[in-house]
């Protein structure tokens, strides 16, 4: 499997450039975080991969097969999108039944087990679900569909903390049992930072970062201590952000540690969210 290759893809909506000459590869069996601010082009990119919308130029290959309106390529991908495209009158169990028809590898038994774990009533119709359960039912399908590529666009929208934790747990369980490529497009950066292996940051339709989570986090560090000591240390350095807690302070810095840390200053890891905000605010 060669993964999903995105070659020179551009897309405009009127005068607005949603994607500009995107070149990207989602490799097999990796978990990606697709991060970007609202309107950065994340959903547009995912929709182009799955042929829900067409790019103005460029092409997408899925395992070497052109994806544009091609059943053979599209069968390898499942996109759970923010918007619900399942008929509102349809019951969840009917959705499961039909998904099995479209995706022969869909594991219906596993889907019912997950429904139990998430306390989703499969006798309910799609339109009767709350925002949170709407996300849950689509997540259950995404986790049971068994395609080589699963794209999740804002997967935890409306989910409470308990369900979010359960989702991340189930996602990792599933991934360890049968690895596949998972692309998570989200705003909740802190939550996914422990799951994702690779980070792609998209800004105004352009890819500004595409590297492993580890290397991105290694591009900086954090220091903590009393406000006075931290202020003295960070003076003249590339500061991403600062958190204050009473008389204590934590600062996030870009670059390598130069020399020894002064006494009373503790070294920590870089905060992904702070880095993201700094990168996307520039």
């Amino acid at each position, binding site marked *: 499997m060669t993964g999903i290759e995105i070659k020179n893809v551009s897309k405009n909506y009127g005068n607005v450039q949603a994607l500009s000459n995107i070149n990207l590869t989602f490799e097999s069996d990796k978990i990606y975080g697709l991060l970007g601010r609202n309107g950065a082009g994340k*959903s547009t990119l995912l*929709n182009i991969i*799955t*042929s*829900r*919308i*067409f790019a103005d130029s460029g092409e997408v290959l899925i395992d070497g097969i052109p994806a544009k*309106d*091609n*059943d*053979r390529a*599209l*069968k390898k*991908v*499942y*996109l759970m*999108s*923010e*918007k619900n*495209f*399942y*008929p509102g009158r349809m019951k969840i169990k009917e959705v499961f039944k*039909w*998904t099995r*028809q*479209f*995706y022969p590898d869909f594991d219906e038994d596993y889907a019912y087990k997950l429904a139990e774990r998430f306390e989703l009533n499969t006798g309910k119709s799609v339109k009767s679900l709350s925002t949170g359960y709407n996300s849950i039912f689509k997540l259950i399908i995404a986790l049971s569909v068994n395609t080589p590529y699963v794209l999740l666009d804002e997967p935890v929208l409306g989910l409470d903390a308990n369900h979010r934790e359960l989702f991340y747990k189930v996602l990792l369980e599933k991934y360890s049992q049968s690895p596949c490529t998972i692309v998570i497009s989200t705003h909740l950066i802190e939550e996914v930072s422990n799951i994702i292996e690779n980070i792609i940051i998209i800004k105004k339709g352009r890819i500004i970062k595409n590297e492993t989570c580890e290397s991105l986090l290694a591009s900086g560090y954090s220091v903590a201590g009393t406000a006075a000591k931290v202020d003295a240390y960070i003076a003249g350095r590339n500061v991403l952000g600062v958190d204050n807690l009473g008389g204590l302070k934590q600062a996030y810095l870009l670059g390598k540690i130069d020399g020894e840390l002064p006494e009373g200053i503790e070294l920590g890891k870089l905060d992904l969210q702070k880095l993201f905000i700094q990168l996307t605010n520039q």
Partner: protein
Amino acid sequence: MNTSVSYRYQLASQIKGIVIYYLIVLCVSVLVIATSTVAISISSADDGLSGQIVGTEFATIIYLFVAACNSFREEFGMLMQNATSRKSLFIGRILTTLTISSFMVIMDKLIYFINRAAYSDDKYVVLSFFDSFYNTNSDSFKLQITGFFFHLSFNLFASGLGYLLTNIFYRSGKGGRLGLCVGLPVGIVVVLPIVDSIIAKGKISEAIFRGLDKILGVSAQKPLYGIISCFLIFTGLSAISWLLIRRANVKE
């Protein structure tokens, strides 16, 4: 290709509506038969009571048009969600239209024969949609087959037209939608008759009726003309629908 499952899905999404439609048609038929039976039983021979049931199949044609008008958006979303190409969606749609249209012709024929059997009295005439066009009222096998294809071609035409309109609606912007929802009906129902009667002095409607008469072969008593015309129009409408679908984007 996902054509087979696309076909099965689109067919399944229509079944409930068709069942409800025929339950209503059957109820209406039973009601009409019951009331006329009572009327016949209480009337005397010299009351001159008579009646006609003509072209009930026209209700099916309207049903198919309306159903097609409501069939695109939801099915498109569901099929796009489930890795189905536009090509598979469209082929599935054509196969669904052919299946449903044929099935409804058969159902209408059954209802027609039930009505005929119920009204054995000469005072009551039951005419099919086809009979009313071509002044036939015969049970000959050839005419039944011709009637089948005539009705089928009209069903296809109605489905094709409804599907094209819903596709145009889906692809249009706000102005286009307004034009389609308001402009088109107002144009046909209000503006055209006014222009025809005041300015054209009835020449437009005359030309339309003459055109319809020719393409349907009514005066010439050639049902084959009507069958071929409707099939050709259905093909043309479907071709335009395909041109719209192949570039359609899913709307978020």
